[in-house]
């Protein structure tokens, strides 16, 4: 059992990045405010990704006005499964995942049944800005549901596991896998009770796993050993993250992506203010890695592939142990 508090000195020695430091020294310094709308609006991110050929779940259609909701049943009729997202939602708010249909009903990822009225109300609330920051008017994105990559079979409860990568100046510096649990209601948010699994930068193997800021070794719902997690297309994952930097120019960024069984890594959304919990999941602080990248000469401009290779070498499990 861990103690109730940790001393600031130990935290500093562990290289943990705090929120004040993140806001002032990294977000404030490396992220241009003008680029924020690109990542705060998922529709813009998606269109941008299509321009840059960054793989992302296919967009079915967009609902922009309340009156379009009346006819939405016809548009949804052709889709067996789909995901509704508010373009300006934050922290996973307002995302509705429909896995399949049964007669007139839609089946949520949790197994709950919804009728068309529930779906329409969700859309109406989204348009009115219920899920967007400060209640601004919003649009609904209807996109393809990811086909769960079987490599995570048994590791996630009622939800698609997603991968968060932190990229600093285009170099992937830290990564974690987020597994939904019963406690998190199928959502992959750590503070809602999802499991965070720190991943080794060179191999994508599991380093450490936490739930509610406590270390765990098995998934709380399925009982699978988290230590066996590894990914075969790890380099592809990091490549996707590195290319997102070329797309937005944001120096300090969080990239959320998922593994599709057929299409490989797919970018879900970008975050200009990524959270700090990734450090707990990894059992390592971000500061030493960020300072290392910060120390690289400004004129060192290399392609995404080169940055990924550099990060996989410098931040490998072996070099961390030293």
């Amino acid at each position, binding site marked *: 059992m*861990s103690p109730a508090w*940790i001393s600031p000195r130990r935290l500093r020695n562990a290289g943990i990045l*705090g*929120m004040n430091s993140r806001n002032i020294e990294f977000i404030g310094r490396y992220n241009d405010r003008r680029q924020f709308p690109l990542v705060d609006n998922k529709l813009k991110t998606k269109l941008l990704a299509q321009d840059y050929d960054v793989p992302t779940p296919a967009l079915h259609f967009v609902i922009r006005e309340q009156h379009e909701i009346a006819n939405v049943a016809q548009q949804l009729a052709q889709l067996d499964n789909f995901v509704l997202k508010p373009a300006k939602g934050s922290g996973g708010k307002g995302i509705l995942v429909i896995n399949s249909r049964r007669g007139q009903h839609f089946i949520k990822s949790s197994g709950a049944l919804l009728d068309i009225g529930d779906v329409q109300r969700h859309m109406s609330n989204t348009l009115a800005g*219920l899920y967007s920051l400060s209640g601004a008017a919003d649009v609904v994105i209807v996109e393809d549901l990811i086909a769960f990559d079987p490599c995570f079979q048994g590791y996630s409860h009622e939800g698609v596991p997603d991968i968060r990568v932190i990229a600093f100046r285009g170099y992937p510096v830290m990564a974690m896998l987020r597994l939904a649990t019963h406690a998190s209601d199928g959502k992959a948010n750590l503070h809602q009770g999802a499991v965070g699994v720190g991943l080794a930068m060179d191999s994508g193997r599991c380093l450490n796993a936490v739930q509610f800021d406590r270390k765990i070794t098995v998934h709380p719902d399925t009982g699978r050993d988290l230590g066996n997690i590894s990914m075969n297309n790890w380099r592809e994952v990091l490549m996707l993250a590195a290319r997102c930097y070329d797309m937005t120019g944001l120096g300090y960024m969080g990239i959320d992506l998922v593994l599709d069984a057929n299409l490989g890594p797919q970018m879900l959304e970008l975050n200009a203010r990524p959270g700090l919990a990734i450090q707990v999941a990894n059992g390592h602080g971000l500061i030493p890695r960020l300072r290392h990248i910060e120390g690289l000469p400004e004129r060192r401009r290399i392609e995404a592939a080169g940055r990924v290779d550099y990060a996989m070498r410098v931040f490998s499990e072996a070099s961390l142990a030293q």
Partner: protein
Amino acid sequence: MSKRLTFRLMVFFIAAIGLLVAALRHMETGIPWLPGQETSIWLVEARVDFSADGGAITASLSLPENPPGFELFEEQAASAGYGFSLLDGERGRRAVWTKRSAIDDQSLYYSAQFIATEEEFNMPRDGKRPRPLPVFWNDAQSTASSELLARASETSSSPTSLTRELVKLLNMKPADQNTALLLSQASASAELLMQLLNQARVPARLVMALYLEDARRRQRLTPMVEVYTGEEWLLFNPQTGATGVPPNLLLWHRQGNSLLDVTGGRQSRVSFSMIQQSVPARQLALAKNSDTLFSRFGVHRLPIEEQSMFKLLLLLPLGAAVVVFMRVLVGLQTAGTFMPILVSLAFMQTSLLPGLASFVSVVAIGLVMRSYLSRLNLLLVARIATLIVLVIFMISVLSVIGYQLGYSTGMIITFFPMIIIAWTIERMSILWEEEGPREVLVQGGGSLVVAVIAYLLMENPLLQHLSFNFPELNLVLLASILAMGQYTGYKLSELRRFRAMDEG
């Protein structure tokens, strides 16, 4: 690195300038650092508004004369272009403004300082025994008043007990038909009481009194009745029947017929602003009348109506600094960045515990209502608007229930800005749906903790004294806010959040 140094120098200079100016002001004007012991100096300002017809204007306002419990220290009038004089005559002391011609809206100011005296609140004796005033009733009123008086005098023995009995009869619920008839034709129950007493040959007069509360604006006078007991004038509250002058009551108008006379104007009215001073009266007078730069640009030169507003405004930086401290250094989560300051401002008017209780209960009831609203499938804007209407109903009901139970605390909640309550409920219910009740408690509790801390600091007499009399000290607060804005260390909450890192 040099950028950082300039920033630090700037912060240092801002703080130094604030302290320096405050020290200079202290030396120049003699305003003390600590609030004075004699805290009960009231600056009261009467403002007469009317709309002038275009001809000659004479406005005359009744002024307090030896008000019991207070001593008049200093008085002045400020009104551009008007002749001003103080008259002491048959009709008591009056302030008279005159002007050859004026048109449109006019405002005249009279302000005075009153020092609360510690002596017993004895009513001054008048030279000669006053006579009852003549009373004129119509037939129906005359019958009703005679019956009422007959009933009251049956159960009383002296002018004092007669007055008490009459107050009881007038405030009886439900009113009997005699009382109802008389009340329906009188402008106020105080006036009716005065007339009834005079009909019973007991000398009584109508008094207009002012309740003194710090930093209040646009206050009205409250009518009361003074009864001559045979030895002295005794004040009666026509609603409660309480006798004597409470310490925070200033008897403004006691003699003569009218409070305010305006010839040559229409729609005249008088309103009062007041402020309690923590600076000894002598120093305040010095500070105001001396011709230094400080006194000329001091807040004390403003009309009292504005001063009392500034008294509140100058406390806001303190609240803002508390919010920054709690969020940046402690890491407390609050619902809405500066919502806690607004709540703590509301607490200032309601006092802490009743304000806290009513705020929490209204938000809690609102959350229950909101959960029903979410089934109605409304648009967000309409839902918040509905919530505002429901919150107003809820507050009305609470006020009525509170009043019936004998608490005036029910009314207190009306001071809270309606929109803030509605938004708080909306945000909390979204939080509830999305993150669960725990997060609601965390953020709601965090907001309340910040609001209470800000309130406690803003209520502190020393800090109130300093922020109002040395406004430049807010520069020191500004410097500390700037310094906190550059803090890159860990928050207190992060020492707990990252405790898992200690496992090795």
